């Protein structure tokens, strides 16, 4: 309940430290600066975005950090301070540790299966091929469907006795629908559905990047006697580097917060075998009202994303025009 006031305090503090910040009323004063009343202009133009962002994006992170130090059911004010106990508890909890492990598996799968497949398809669609516009349109279409619709559709496709999976099962002589019920396979099944929805996005990114590379480069390589594979490996692939690195980044960040798809497909089960950090957080925060503990899980997700993003930025993206994310350099 006290949250909004603290937040608006920080906001006022922040705009006040912005150097020339007279009130909006002075916006019309002229002459002293190259631009009339620019402080007022700045304040007026920045206020809506800053207010929204500080109150609804940054403040929640701060609140989560604070709440994670308490044993708190989410009602009233947190009073029972327990220090880092929630974190200790999380790292001792097999479900949480499993979440981390499963997240890693999903990331690795998407790096070795999904992204290469998307890259291959992008290269394929870069060939002169009749009807490739139609293929492109179809391949990208799942991206616009929500994760929920996709997940419900696939639940039904693999529903016992009457799904499409049933037909496949009869044909295979094995039970296809059981992939979602078997703890050993469920994570891969989830991964396949996630890939179904998202490979088109990566394909499109690669395709756009590929089309930005002048044709002459690989042609020159081929003229010089390189095979098509060598031209791809040593000319095209390095030039696609920045896009590949950004795709890896998007894929990892996406995996850390994977929720909708898992929640609808499996609810995290059977016996936690497809659970993700976000699902565990949701279970504790919204089902069991252990808001302090769930906040600690949120903070772990946040730190994972942040540390990964910073390291990645430092180590991997550094070569690409100082990184697309914090690129405030010149015009280009």
């Amino acid at each position, binding site marked *: 309940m006290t949250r909004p006031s603290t937040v608006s305090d920080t906001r006022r503090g922040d705009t006040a430290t912005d150097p020339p910040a007279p009130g909006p009323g002075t916006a019309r004063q002229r002459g002293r600066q190259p631009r009339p009343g620019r402080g007022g202009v700045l304040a007026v133009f920045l206020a809506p975005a800053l207010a929204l962002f500080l109150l609804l994006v940054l403040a929640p992170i701060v609140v989560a950090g604070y709440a994670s130090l308490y044993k708190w059911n989410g009602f009233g004010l947190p009073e029972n301070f327990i220090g880092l106990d929630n974190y200790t508890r999380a790292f001792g909890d097999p479900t949480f540790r499993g979440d981390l492990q499963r997240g890693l598996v999903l990331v690795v799968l998407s790096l070795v299966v999904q992204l290469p497949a998307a890259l291959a398809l992008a290269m394929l669609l870069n060939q002169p091929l009749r009807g490739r516009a139609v293929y492109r349109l179809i391949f990208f279409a799942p991206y616009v469907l929500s994760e929920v619709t996709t997940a419900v559709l696939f639940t039904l496709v693999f529903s016992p006795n009457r799904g499409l999976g049933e037909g496949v099962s009869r044909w295979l002589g094995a039970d296809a629908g059981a992939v979602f019920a078997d703890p050993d396979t469920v994570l891969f099944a989830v991964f396949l559905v996630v890939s179904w929805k998202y490979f088109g996005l990566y394909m499109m990114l690669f395709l756009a*990047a590929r089309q930005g590379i002048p044709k002459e480069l690989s042609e020159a390589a081929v003229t010089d006697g390189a095979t098509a594979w060598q031209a791809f490996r040593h000319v095209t692939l390095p030039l696609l580097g920045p896009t590949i690195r950004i795709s890896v980044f998007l894929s990892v960040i996406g995996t850390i917060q994977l929720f909708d798809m898992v929640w609808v497909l499996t609810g995290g089960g059977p016996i936690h075998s497809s659970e993700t950090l976000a699902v565990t957080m949701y279970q504790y925060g919204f089902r069991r009202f252990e808001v302090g503990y*769930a906040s600690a899980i949120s903070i772990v*997700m946040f730190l994972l994303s942040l540390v990964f993003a910073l390291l990645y930025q430092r180590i991997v993206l550094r070569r690409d025009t100082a990184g697309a994310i914090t690129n405030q350099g010149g015009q280009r």
Partner: protein
Amino acid sequence: MTATASRAQRTRSVVLHLVCIAVGALIVVPVWFGVLGGFKDNGQLSTNPLGWPDPWVPNYLDILGNGVFWRQLGNSLLIAVSSTVIVVGAAAMAAFVFARYAFRGREFLVTLFAIGLMFPFAVAILPLFVLLRGMNLLDNPLGVILPQAAFGLPITIIILRQFFRTIPAEVEEAAVLDGCGSFGFFWRVLLPMARPALATVSVLAIVTSWNNFMLPLVVFSDQSWWTLPVGVQAFQGQYADDTARVLAYVVLSMLPALGFYAVAERQLIGGLTGSVKG
């Protein structure tokens, strides 16, 4: 020599087509199963999952004749349009300042917003819920609209700022000579010139809002505010035994997104590829 070359060419193109068709089938067949399945009953689904429905069962008409679907469609639309207007408006103003004014603290603020790109939405959902409850915004569409707008700011600001920087300073000087203030220039010159970029970010914002599930799930306990994703999930829970009926509901809820994609494909793809190039 040319004959074998063109034959190799043809084999190659046949192989490429086969690969594309196989991948396309993986996408189209489940959707097609859903579309046809919506016209069947459960008996037909188990005996004849892929074939033509016989007889045709009016699941779609049942759903369309019931107000619930339309209500959820309307809610999704209201929330998507409002979030988009707010995020694009606020981001355009900020991006204008970031692109065309030099001031102390600018880089810090730009970086602050850019860091927002890395915040997974799921990280903030729990404290956001507590915050919204404190502000009495649960079961209120603003409780979804405002956070969505806030989380959309980073990407929108980055794309718009990039675009605003490409507009030459001469344009602004001319506008100032013609008596335009900063607000006049922004509103009457910059925004109209930025229409393509505004279209791009609007399309991204609409799709993001349309597909959002977690936030409406926790904010709306009152069913009359449910959006389509929440509704679809609940419908699946409610009619778990009636696969055909749920298929019809899922397919209907896909149609607006696919229709929008057909219309706005270029903006959507341009926005996604453009934002990655930064």
